[in-house]
């Protein structure tokens, strides 16, 4: 993709982010941080490419380490979000 297309996606996504995040209820701000943390680990994509492709051994090991770190975040982040969200209940009286 050329730089301008990428930039367009980025700018539009910032606007989407702005409106979506303002609509998040303050009661769920902690789960919001946990889940944003999990999804920002999509950076694992970069680690996977480095680990998968031949060409540089050092890059491969850096990539594998990045995959481990990002996986901790992905699994940990989604799991802890799920655990928190399961606690938000409305009790019927």
């Amino acid at each position, binding site marked *: *993709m050329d730089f301008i297309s990428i930039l367009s996606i980025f700018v539009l996504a910032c606007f989407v982010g702005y409106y979506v995040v303002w609509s998040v209820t303050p009661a769920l701000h902690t789960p919001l941080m946990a889940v944003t943390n999990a999804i920002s680990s999509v950076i694992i*994509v970069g680690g996977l490419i480095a680990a998968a492709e031949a060409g540089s051994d050092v890059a491969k090991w850096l990539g594998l380490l990045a995959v481990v770190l990002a*996986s901790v975040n992905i*699994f940990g982040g989604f799991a802890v979000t799920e655990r928190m969200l399961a606690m938000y209940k409305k009790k019927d009286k």
Partner: protein
Amino acid sequence: MNLSFLAAGAEGGAATPAWAMLAYLVAGIFFILALRGLSSPATSRTGNRFGMAGMAIAVITTLVTHSIANIAEIGIAIFIGAIIGVTMARRIAMTSMPELVAGFHSLVGLAAVLVGWAAYLNPGAFGLLTDGGAIGPVSKIEMGLGIAIGAITFSGSVIAFLKLSGKMSGSPIMLPGRHIINLGTLAAILVLTAMFAHTPGADANLPFIVALTIAAFIIGFLLIIPIGGADMPVVVSMLNSYSGWAAAAMGFTLGNSAMIITGALVGSSGAILSYIMCKAMNRSFISVIAGGFGADSSGGGNGEVREQRPYKQGSAADAAFMLEQAEKVIVIPGYGMAVAQAQHALREMTDVLEEKGVEVKFAIHPVAGRMPGHMNVLLAEANVSYDKVFELEDINSEFAQADVAFIIGANDVVNPAAKTDKSSPIYGMPVFDVDKAKQVFFIKRSMGGVGYAGVDNDVFYMDQTMMLLSDAKKMVEEIVKAMD
């Protein structure tokens, strides 16, 4: 319809097939839906599932589109990460959520640094080579910025983690001339990034990328050490934002829409949370970042002697009696409730009162606790129904009709000095109008501590205030016992 375009390669750069680019776009949209779900507790879990699905799509697409020589090693790496992550997520106490989140942020930051370096060392794998067989200058700027933001996120989050978990003092550490050092280091990072981008040839530009990585690690450390414990909600939100911008910068380098969309979402999310936190403290973002707030003032080195003012102290039995007589009680929890782990006892007290026909509501200040929404999670953990929990602006007008304002572990957020005393460090911060309630119960460990802002609180000395001096959990348990 002719779908052959799906198999075509993208124009220039990496040979990512069109279907894969669409898959990354779908992953990005799923991440938007994950955040959208959080607009209400009822839809939040569906949202989280969208997030998981989006991540699975992104990972599988990447694996399928690359010639994987090391699938076994990659599988092991993911497996190790999964075991560690899930174990931490299961074991962590809800009161420790802020340090877990800070710790997770540091991992994203470090992963960004590693990916940036891997892309530098093996640009061919990422489709970054231009016709001349070198990395283009634009790619190098993106790479340099990605590494720098990642490194700042890493070292900053490590300090935030140490402060939040109590492994390092929460009070600000002030270096002389720190503003000049910090601005100088930031300027150096920008100059190094420019020189890195401008210098062709891997041998010639290697020193620049090494130096910028090191400088970024140092600045992350320097930026967070002068910031005190009470400002941690802003810091955690800010680092959340940085981790997003780091992912976005890497997305630019790799031309990956899932990473760019996610980075933009997370970046704006953290920025908005920082803004909400700053506004709730009536402080500017710059003043928080400059640090030094909440410096230890209890030493009394200013020669200022606080006058001893009379206050009323009550027992659990007194409190229990008056709570039972009340029609409406508003509970204001703060960080002290988290420290004392009093949320379960508090829920029990609520149940007993509700059985007796007393209306109980919870009032949460945006900066209560150590991260945004901290109190809400603890109350949810203790099984308090979320429709009884209210935000500052939604409940503040109700104090005039409340019989009891029950303050547990909060202090600055009920201090009327924020409304009246222009010289107070917390002046202008929105606070709860507890002075309008008929009675105020204030659970506090002792009369000594005066909140993080280090200011005295007139609420202690009001006629209608009863101080309940004890550990929060013990006091609430005794109140519950006394009501039976």
